[in-house]
């Protein structure tokens, strides 16, 4: 595809330059001697080739795409190297500390063994499923609520004055702080956990949407109005697409907050009726002084948090920025 356009462009460019060099002297002669010829038509075709030449010159530099393996090397290799180095340092620390005996530090191998050994008995698989399920439900609800709040705050001036500082404030408040209140109100139930997740994620999503809406260049709205987009059409065809980058980065942050809040809530609000969760596995590890399992849980939390970001939000954001010409690559 890229090759095709490149050859097409260079081809038309050559045509144009040939024509220009050929017509340079003859063009004047033609207009001077044969005035009977349709002047406009002649001018038109010359205009067309001239324009094709300009376009070719302007876009000749574009269209070189990096081969996939280079993208892979530049994107995938650095994090893999970082991971290997981290594991290496970790292992080195363990080897050095084994003889001091003061602080227990299990090595990567111990953690792996602990995770595989506990997979069945501690139901780690089920716990991961439970946590991800809760996070997904909580995040989805946060998107709905956060979007409604964001839209209202952005569009209704008095509401903005009243609520915007509160939203920024809520972003600073660790949502774990709501656990005691949640437990007093709802007991140790799913409702408590969801409350904490919502209070963690909703402000980020709302603030992201407000930012996105605020940063819509006014000229887009004017163009939209001139094109005939009014009311809902203006929201649908202009406002929402224009605000999307801010909205998506708000959602990305909202996901991070949702996941983080969920882990905190699961660690504190524990009840057999709630079923397993990664936070509970961690609590179990703490109660049993199982350091390997505790570190393993942290790794699981990291992997899920990073994984979902890399799978959903990062590609979405990259695509949004690339299509708009806002990213470096």
């Amino acid at each position, binding site marked *: 595809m890229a090759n095709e356009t490149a050859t097409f462009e260079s081809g038309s460019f050559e045509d144009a330059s040939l024509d220009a060099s050929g017509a340079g002297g003859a063009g004047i002669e033609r207009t001077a001697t044969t005035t009977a010829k349709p002047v406009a038509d002649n001018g038109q075709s010359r205009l067309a080739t001239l324009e094709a030449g300009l376009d070719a010159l302007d876009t000749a530099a574009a269209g070189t795409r990096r081969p996939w393996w280079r993208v892979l090397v530049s994107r995938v290799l650095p994090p893999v190297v970082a991971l290997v180095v981290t594991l290496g340092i970790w292992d080195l620390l363990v080897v050095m500390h084994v003889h001091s005996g003061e602080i227990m530090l299990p090595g990567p191998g111990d953690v792996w063994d602990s995770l595989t050994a506990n997979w069945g008995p501690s139901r780690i698989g089920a716990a991961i499923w439970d946590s991800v399920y809760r996070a997904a439900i909580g995040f989805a609800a946060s998107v709905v609520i956060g979007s409604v709040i964001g839209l209202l705050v952005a569009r209704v001036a008095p509401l903005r004055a009243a609520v915007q500082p509160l939203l920024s404030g809520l972003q600073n408040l660790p949502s774990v702080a709501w656990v005691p209140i949640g437990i007093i109100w709802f007991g140790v139930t799913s409702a408590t956990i969801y409350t904490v997740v919502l209070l963690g994620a909703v402000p980020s999503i709302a603030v992201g949407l407000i930012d996105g809406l605020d940063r819509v260049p006014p000229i887009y709205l004017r163009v939209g109005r001139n*094109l005939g987009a009014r009311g809902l059409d203006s929201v649908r065809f202009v406002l929402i*697409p224009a605000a999307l980058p801010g909205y998506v980065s708000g959602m990305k942050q909202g996901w991070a907050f949702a996941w983080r809040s969920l882990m905190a809530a699961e660690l504190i609000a524990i009840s057999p009726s709630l079923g397993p969760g990664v936070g509970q596995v961690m609590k179990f590890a703490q109660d049993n002084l199982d350091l390997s399992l505790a570190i393993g849980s942290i790794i699981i939390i990291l992997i899920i948090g990073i994984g979902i970001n890399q799978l959903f939000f990062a590609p979405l954001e990259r695509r949004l920025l690339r299509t*708009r010409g806002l990213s470096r690559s």
Partner: protein
Amino acid sequence: MTVTIDEAPSARTLTEAAVRLSGVSKWFGKESDKPVLDGIDLTVAPGEFVCLLGASGCGKSTLLNLVAGLDPVSAGSIEVTGGRAALMFQESALFPWLTAAGNIELALRLRGVGKAQRRSEAERLLSLVRLEGAAHKRAHELSGGMRQRVALARALAQQAEVLLMDEPFAALDAITRDVLHGELTALWQETGVTVLFVTHNVREAARLGQRVILLSSRPGRVAREWRVDIPQPRRIEDAAVSELAREITDELHQEITKHARLAQNSGTQRSGIQSKETRRNG
């Protein structure tokens, strides 16, 4: 667009006006004593190409916004045939989330064109500005000149009888601008659309317009008007175009000089106050 081509000749009667401004004034806020535009009377005939020229502060962009219906007039009235006019800006203002064709299709969609027709109509409009190959490109992948051509195609997609252009080529390099002058002239002759073209470039106005209207600055008023009978296609280097540009520039300079005198007057007043103060301090 084909419909317009068919209709345009019959609509081009001398008595009719594509745009009619009667005593249009505009001030912002409550400062009716400091209007941006003051009592503008202007009639643009159907199919006419009129250039509005002026230094900064003459309110020429404001005037276009009024005609486009983006801002309300403070006094007077504006009539536009068909009720609406397509507007083109200095920056192309193409929507970056849509491709070139997508931008045009959105304009068609908002005009109520059916889905089946939109694609072929967008293709036709793109070929009108000779950008058939750029249908799937985004704004950032196009050069400034190409962007303005897509914006022009999008404006034509609105099928308004009046096309308002707000310094559309001001940000382009001279070579591209020159080519686009030819392009616009050809399109204007082909479609019979009425053009109201705002610029601060005197040669551009002389190159393009059938009529050039010079606005004074602060407040914007019609200072002078030229009817340009040089036949199209003109070239910016044509002796007649240069001659006209020279005449207009002289007039424009006179308009600007008035403000120098005004500024000087207020300047001497200010320095007078200052010297009084220093005397008092001393």
